[in-house]
């Protein structure tokens, strides 16, 4: 099997299996055990685990340190890296730091604006954007060189990913944007969580028409609703999120104690439907503060056990 990196995730995708990834949010403190516990809960049910990078601009334990912890546990981390907080020197440096621990996956993001977080008065960097970060990692890996031109001793071998949001505006540009990321060198995509499956199908059809299914592995993002309140919040308050009324109605239509179960049902049903969709090569399950449900979702979606890859 010809993979470009030792990444387990790449191997699973290249071998034709559906991949399953999930994510852990680091703590707002220095207790690494929080990561360990979350990872223990999900490790047998996923192929790789994302660690978010100061998500929503809220200061947390850094993604790199948490990824190292996962690696030392024998698990497969995906380093999420935003360009909001670090210039190109720091980005390249952290990439090498991750590579020094043989972290083989990276997700390149721009990052939410710091206005949303706990330091709205801070500076932001945005020395480069997410597409340019994709180019940078590929350059470091494939040319073995720093952006400045010097050779890298022991270049990083990373499987390069990025996010895609089929539901942000303008919709008509979203597939072009995906194509642009592919041209920049991205190898796998994790999408924003999907509730509007019809719209996602349109997106995937357009992507297929552009020949993108053959060029990039797309993992469909899913997030189970814990409550009708959560569904409404995500519908109305989160930018770039598309939650159809029927879905909210379904959540509101059951009594409060039954809502978590309904949320999981919706999630599992979505996965079943998305499995049939051409171009979907796996799933990224984002069970925010509900990691303990990942095993059930994976099992009920028929994705357990995870393939053994050497």
């Amino acid at each position: 099997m010809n993979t470009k990196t030792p990444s387990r995730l790449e191997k699973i995708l290249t071998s034709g299996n559906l991949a399953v990834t999930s994510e852990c949010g680091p703590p707002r403190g220095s207790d690494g055990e929080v990561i360990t516990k979350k990872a223990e809960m999900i490790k047998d049910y996923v192929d790789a685990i994302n660690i978010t990078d100061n998500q929503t601009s809220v200061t947390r334990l850094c993604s790199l340190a948490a990824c190292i912890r996962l690696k030392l546990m024998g698990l497969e981390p995906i380093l999420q890296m935003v360009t909001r907080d670090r210039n190109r020197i720091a980005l390249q440096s952290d990439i090498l730091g991750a590579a020094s621990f043989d972290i083989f996956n990276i997700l390149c993001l721009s990052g939410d604006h710091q206005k949303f977080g706990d330091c709205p008065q801070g500076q932001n960097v945005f020395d480069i954007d997410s597409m340019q970060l994709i180019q940078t990692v590929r350059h470091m890996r494939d040319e073995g060189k720093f952006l400045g031109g010097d050779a890298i001793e022991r270049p990083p071998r990373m499987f390069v990913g990025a996010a895609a949001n089929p539901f942000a505006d303008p919709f008509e540009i979203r597939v072009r944007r995906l194509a642009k990321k592919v041209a920049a060198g991205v190898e796998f995509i994790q999408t924003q969580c999907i509730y509007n499956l019809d719209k996602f199908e349109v997106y995937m059809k357009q992507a297929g028409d552009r020949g993108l299914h053959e060029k990039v592995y797309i993992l469909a993002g899913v997030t189970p609703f814990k409550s009708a309140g959560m569904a409404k919040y995500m519908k109305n308050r989160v930018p770039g999120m598309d939650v159809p009324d029927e879905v909210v109605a379904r959540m509101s239509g059951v009594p409060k104690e039954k809502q978590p179960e309904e949320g999981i049902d919706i999630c599992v049903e979505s996965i079943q439907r998305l499995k049939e969709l051409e171009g979907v090569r796996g799933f990224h399950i984002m069970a925010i503060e509900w990691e303990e449900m990942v095993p059930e979702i994976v099992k009920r979606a028929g994705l357990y056990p995870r393939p053994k890859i050497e």
Partner: protein
Amino acid sequence: MIVAERKPIEEIMGFVRDFKKIIIAGCNECVTVCYAGGKKEVEILASALSMAFMKEGKELEIKEVTLERQCDPEYLEELRGFIYDYDAVVSLACGVGVQFLAEKYLKIPVFPGVNTLFMGVTEEKGVWSERCQGCGQCILGQTAGICPISRCAKRLLNGPCGGSTKGKCEINPELDCAWQLIIDRLKELGRLDDYDTLIPIKDWSTERAGGPRKLVREDLQQ
């Protein structure tokens, strides 16, 4: 033009509290156009400060003067004859003018009367918005005349980000998403395919990051 806004009167009072004779120096250019520091604003500030000081039982003599510009040495020379008769200057020019005035008259304290905000346009009377951050390497030809560096909150060169909602920026629903504007304009120009071209990593060395900037034209030096 440079857009500025008058500082709160209380803050200005704090600057000149201990002085007896001050000059309020306005500027006839940008700050006049944005109603922050022109002749009328000088008058208003002088009147306000007089009353504020009188109320406290203090005397404050104020000379009002409005220069053509404060960023060219010739116009600042107009102050030479009398400036040192005073204790302090409150300059209502933009940050550029305040500094240049201070440079030309080292022996008198100079205080800023406005907060300098940005390089921008008059959208309509009373509304000004940012357009340029002086990055030193203009790419407006590639982005249909709309600058992603000054108008995108994340200065993305390959935007929009996933937070763009109904053509507005995630940080402020009244702020246009620069990349939506660029895409719309490219469509109107029949050049939407330009969007597919990746804009490479920017050289920021000509921007603030590269250090304070200077331009020399030897052909013009005397």
